[in-house]
């Protein structure tokens, strides 16, 4: 233990962050943040990345967290600085991402007086945080930071807000590293109950038509190795949610890809027909289940989640297990290894799935308008990065094509706002991801709509030399809303056509990044090679087909077998 050292609150915060192993934080200064920024000026191990908008700071910290598994940290000044973080905090909350957001607050004696740049940020963020602190005494700082990191990163991860009045930053304290926790109300259960795990193992062993349904918890708990073992041991076909892409390699013969609204025919039918559904770390979200009453109608359901509140929330499982995906999968493997199991038990089922995969692959046709097929662009990114890049996205059609046409092989490879569906997430998240994992190629697959929401962060990428590759699938539309208008609103494209569009190539160049424009098929590969190889931030404007839709699609609230555009290969030329 370090000896107590007199210092200011602002310095103590830097020391405490460094003690937690924080290497980088994303932020934006402001009036009451000045004392902290003054202390950051002298920081040795802690690096600060100046973003161009606080929302970018939150998303970048979130992208860093999702890519690395470590806590992402962002900071903003009081009032508008703090409120600009709100979308990013909510994004992290819905996707259970470990984020610590440090906001600065007006002087303690001014709180509640509507002081300049005062906002009640702990109040505003109450419904979207795992926990929050309003620091009342400089001496609390080391302990608060230690607890915040612990809470953000354990159990079901999530965002923690630390709101610090400026006088606390200026106040003095005797600093020592905080290493113990005093959280009597916080004791997450990681290990599933052995009785439940035994019951689940028995059900898996007996199942003739099992499906493994993975959610974000599989990635959050680093469960991929245990899940691979489990799936291979009993030859369990695997469907993943958007949040779990990469938790199971899509190159594996047992992978069925993503399930749900834009999931594969194979995965959705398998869930519909299975007699046992093993949910590890997923939450039966409406984008996955469609009409809840008709979801997995023939199945006994096992639901394992580290968050007890998820169990029974939407679906009452036959075998509930409170525990994380990693421990539960490991427990299941251990139990199953001791059981007899004839491989022919599931042979018919696996053959049925293999046949369906063959008959109903994802497919698209060459666009009639002569523009690029967006799916082809994603396939080319997949091919040229050898299924190895980290892919970040915004939200909408391009996001769904990114789930469908890129091959995810490892956890934390796909970084996307799944729960909140936040447009503008992709670029800042990709900057955070690239800073966290500099050795990987990081590609932000975006749309022309989402990109324009946070495109100022190109300046951040350029100034810190973060070579992310931004691929804009530019169809001139807010494509997913247009798709719904096309299918369900009589093609009344109300305010979804983006008529005035910047020249993205010139825009990128204006920021000091590489800008490329691709309109022809044969330009895709050279442009991607240049963007990936140049070692600088790059933006490629891919002019894609204007009215291409994402298929298959399960209309909201319908049964997941009621898919539009999930035709058989037999019924079409290919």
């Amino acid at each position: 233990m370090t000896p107590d050292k007199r210092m200011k609150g602002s310095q103590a915060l830097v020391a405490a962050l460094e003690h937690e192993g924080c290497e980088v934080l994303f932020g934006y200064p402001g009036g009451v943040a000045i004392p902290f920024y003054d202390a950051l000026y002298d920081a040795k191990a802690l690096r600060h990345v100046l973003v161009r908008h606080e929302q970018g700071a939150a998303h970048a910290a979130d992208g860093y967290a999702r890519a690395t598994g470590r806590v992402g940290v962002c900071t903003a000044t009081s009032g508008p600085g703090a409120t600009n973080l709100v979308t990013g905090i909510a994004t992290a909350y819905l996707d259970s991402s470990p984020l610590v957001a440090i906001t600065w607050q007006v002087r303690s004696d001014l709180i509640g007086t509507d002081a300049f740049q005062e906002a009640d940020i702990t109040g505003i963020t109450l419904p979207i945080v795992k926990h929050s602190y309003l620091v009342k005494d400089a001496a609390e700082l080391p302990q608060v930071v230690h607890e915040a990191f612990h809470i953000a990163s354990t159990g079901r991860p999530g965002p923690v807000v630390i709101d610090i009045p400026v006088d606390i930053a200026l106040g003095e304290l005797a600093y020592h590293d905080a290493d113990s926790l005093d959280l009597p109300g916080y004791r997450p259960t990681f290990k599933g109950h052995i009785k439940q795990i035994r019951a689940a193992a028995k059900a898996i062993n007996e199942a003739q038509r099992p499906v493994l349904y993975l959610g974000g918890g599989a990635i959050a708990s680093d469960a991929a190795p245990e899940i691979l073992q489990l799936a291979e041991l009993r030859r369990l076909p695997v469907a993943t949610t958007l949040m779990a892409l990469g938790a199971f390699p899509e190159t594996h013969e047992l992978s069925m890809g993503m399930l749900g609204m834009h999931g594969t025919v194979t995965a959705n039918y398998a869930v519909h027909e299975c007699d046992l559904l093993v949910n590890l770390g997923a939450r039966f979200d409406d984008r996955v289940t469609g009409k809840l009453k008709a979801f997995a109608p023939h199945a006994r359901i096992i639901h394992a989640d580290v968050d007890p509140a998820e169990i029974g929330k939407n679906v009452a499982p036959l075998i509930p297990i409170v525990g994380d995906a990693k421990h539960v999968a490991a427990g299941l493997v251990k139990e199953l290894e001791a059981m007899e199991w004839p491989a022919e038990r599931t042979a018919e089922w696996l053959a049925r799935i293999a046949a369906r995969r063959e008959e109903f692959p994802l497919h698209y046709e060459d666009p009639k308008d002569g523009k690029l097929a967006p799916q082809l662009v994603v396939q080319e990114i997949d091919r040229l990065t050898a299924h190895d890049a980290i892919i970040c996205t915004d939200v909408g059609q391009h996001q769904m094509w990114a789930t469908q046409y890129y091959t995810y092989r490892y956890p934390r490879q796909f970084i996307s706002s799944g729960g909140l569906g936040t447009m503008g997430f992709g670029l800042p998240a990709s900057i955070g991801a690239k800073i966290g994992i500099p050795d990987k190629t990081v590609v932000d697959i975006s749309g022309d709509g989402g990109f324009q929401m946070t495109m100022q962060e190109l300046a951040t990428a350029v100034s810190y030399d973060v070579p992310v590759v931004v691929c804009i699938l530019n169809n001139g539309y807010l494509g997913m809303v247009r798709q719904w208008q096309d299918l369900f609103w009589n093609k009344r494209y109300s305010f979804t056509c983006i008529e005035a569009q910047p020249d993205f190539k010139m825009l990128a160049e204006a920021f000091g990044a590489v800008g490329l424009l691709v309109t022809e098929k044969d330009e895709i590969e050279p442009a991607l090679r240049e963007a990936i190889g140049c070692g600088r931030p790059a933006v490629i404007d891919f002019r894609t087909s204007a009215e291409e839709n994402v298929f298959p699609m399960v209309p909201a609230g319908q049964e997941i077998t009621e898919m539009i555009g999930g035709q058989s290969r037999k019924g079409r030329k290919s």
Partner: protein
Amino acid sequence: MKHTLSILVENKPGVLTRVAGLFARRGFNIESLAVGLSEDPKLSRITIVIDGDEHPVDQVTKQLHKLINVLKIRDLDAGNAVSAELLIVRVAGEGDKRTEALQIAEIFKAKIVDVDRRALTLRVVGTNDKLEALLELLQPLGILEVVRTGTIAMGRGRG
């Protein structure tokens, strides 16, 4: 169906907001809420009465458990808990009405805590049902003002 939840929380600023906010977000109306220190000055005990079906109450209980400052929650079974609420009521009391009000007070073991020419103020402790019965009887006399603490409750036996 009514549920009485006894929630042990850390005695820290903002905890009540977190708890109450959760009920609002999950669509519950709080019928009554009482909060005070527990046997340990670092902990407070909140008693909340809500009306809700079994499943949503179970869900809100689990969500409450996720609040870092919440230590313990009990869904108290009415048959196996002691509960009480304090009520103060001012009732019109002139002439015959005064006699009647005094009789009713006597029956309910209510204490007369204030009196003037026109009205009587009664204070009474009892279960929710008892207080409701009292108010029903006083109604014809003319109730001028009512204030209630909300139910507090404790499980029987091992507590």
